[in-house]
């Protein structure tokens, strides 16, 4: 029983078909890689899954046995689907602690008006949540920066915080949009270690978009390849690596054609 399933997912912007008929299944407790050249539709795919974009008619998205097609982003988040962004989108002026507290928002038990009528209960619950969030911050190594604004963190710390904010939601599934972008190879390795530890600790299913193929190949059980908005290949890292369609997509058609011509001339 897949945790996430899309059928005939499609999205066009004007004349541009960004995603066409992508059907994909993600099994629970796996790490699923999503790769493809720039502009192949990976980020659009994430935006469709999380409700940032509305899919075109005929699409179907099911998450955790709930039809979430065309549902608003906050509804999908409430179902337990969390994500990070390529450009992080942290709440720069909010403190590190407040950033993860916002991540916890879907589990807030009191009404938005409670501060007016029941301040004591609000403070009691918030203190409990803060303790939990502090543990999370300690785990990702940001506890001592809890009170400083997120904008003042270093690049690596900001990536960790983005991860922490996504985890704070206690999601069932986590979508990671290029978690290693802009990090040095050593930092990428340690980040991936953190991610895998988080996966075990919080019982997560992970879908990861990544350009660093080494990372994808070593951590993912299944890999789907997108090119020009279409799924061109899917399977184990070994299978995908040797799929001619994937090689063509990455090296370019002309080059492949030249190879074929060269082969014919010979």
């Amino acid at each position, binding site marked *: 029983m897949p945790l996430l399933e899309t059928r005939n997912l499609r999205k066009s912007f004007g004349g541009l078909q960004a995603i066409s008929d992508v059907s994909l299944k993600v099994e629970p407790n796996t790490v699923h890689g999503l790769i493809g050249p720039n502009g192949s539709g990976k980020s659009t795919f994430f935006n469709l899954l999380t409700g*940032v974009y509305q899919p075109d008619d005929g699409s179907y998205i099911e998450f955790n046995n709930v039809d979430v097609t065309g549902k608003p982003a906050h509804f999908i988040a409430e179902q337990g689907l969390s994500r990070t962004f390529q450009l992080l*989108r942290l709440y720069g002026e909010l403190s590190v602690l407040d950033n993860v507290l916002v991540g916890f*928002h879907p589990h807030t038990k009191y009404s938005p008006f409670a*501060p007016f009528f029941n301040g004591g209960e609000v403070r009691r619950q*918030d203190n409990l949540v803060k303790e939990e969030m502090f543990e999370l911050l300690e785990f990702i190594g940001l506890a001592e920066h809890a009170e400083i604004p997120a904008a003042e963190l270093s690049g690596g710390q900001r990536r960790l915080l983005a991860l922490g904010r996504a985890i704070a939601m206690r999601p069932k599934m986590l979508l990671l949009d290029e978690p290693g972008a802009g990090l040095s190879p050593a930092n990428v390795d340690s980040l991936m270690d953190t991610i895998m530890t988080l996966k075990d600790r919080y019982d997560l299913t992970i879908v990861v978009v990544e350009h660093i193929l080494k990372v994808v190949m070593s951590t993912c059980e299944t890999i789907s390849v997108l090119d020009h908005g279409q799924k061109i290949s899917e399977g184990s890292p070994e299978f995908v690596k040797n799929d001619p369609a994937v090689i063509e997509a990455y090296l370019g058609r002309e080059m492949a054609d030249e190879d074929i011509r060269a082969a014919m001339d010979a």
Partner: protein
Amino acid sequence: MGILSSMADFIDGLAKRHRLLPWLLAYLFLLPLPFVLATLFNEYLIDLANRICLFILLAVGLNIVKGFCGQVTVGHIGLYAIGAVTSAVLTLEPGGFGGALGFGWPVWAAIPTAVVITAFAGLIVGLPSVRLEGAYLALATLGLGESVRIFIAVTPALGSSTGLMMIPAPSIGSFVFDSFTSYYYLVMTAAIVGIYFSFSILRSATGRAFQAIREDTIAASVNGINVVKYKLLAFVLSAIYAGLAGALFAHMPPGYLHHNNFTVIEMVTLLLMVVLGGIGNVWGGVIGAIVVAIAYDQTKDLVFYFMDRPVVVQPLVFGLSMVLLVLFMPRGIGGWIEDFQRNRRFIRRSEERLSATARNS
């Protein structure tokens, strides 16, 4: 810096004993103000203090929607007008002066009703925020706010050009809040309670949701925040503040309302308070309200003559200070407050670390 720090230490110490102690102290501190003002200066300054309290309510409310939630609204003064006129009309005697509407309600029933009606109006002013942002939202809300004033100005039932007169003052038993001093206790209490609740909102999940929307709307929605709901909620909460300020303004001595109190100039004055205070900072907004209200009062009648023609100084001064503020002090007074608080936190943490190492060695 020294005095400020020891004051802050003192307040922190009080707050540690009980959360409400600093508020109680502030309240007690403000109790004798009318007598101090009347003795040292004159009775008129109590009226100014009352209007400052109303401006504080307005600025703190505007800060919720603009500062916390990041929604640019220029319709706040229209909500203030709705609160004022509703409460006035509900309490006036039927068949009053100049064809004004009147329902003869008791004041204490009219004020909450006016607040509820203003909250609904706030919802309507907030509706454009679902689709519009920034300057476009400002224009839409400006239109709504200004049309409220024009509607009042052309409707005899709501006072039109003569205004509403003889609006009754609230009373408890035989005690009537019809003097500057007695009314001061009413509006001062409202202002303090308003500031307190503004902090309660800011420090709850509601306040964090507002700020998340301000910082990054897409990230907020992906974090499970219903952006439409919370934007509208911010407008409604700020409208509650504006409605209360308006209703209290209507019944304030001398019980007279005129649509001139709700012009775009008033709105700009209000914005100036929030900008000077530092957008998003509650105490900054309060200080901004006090400073700008006093400046407004002092420059109101200032005129100089240019080539024998009178030039009113106030719009020049206010417009220029707005430009200068945005250019040279974009974080406003709130920026200083935040820096001060951060320095204190930093010093405290360093001291903790030092004492920890001292213990260990």
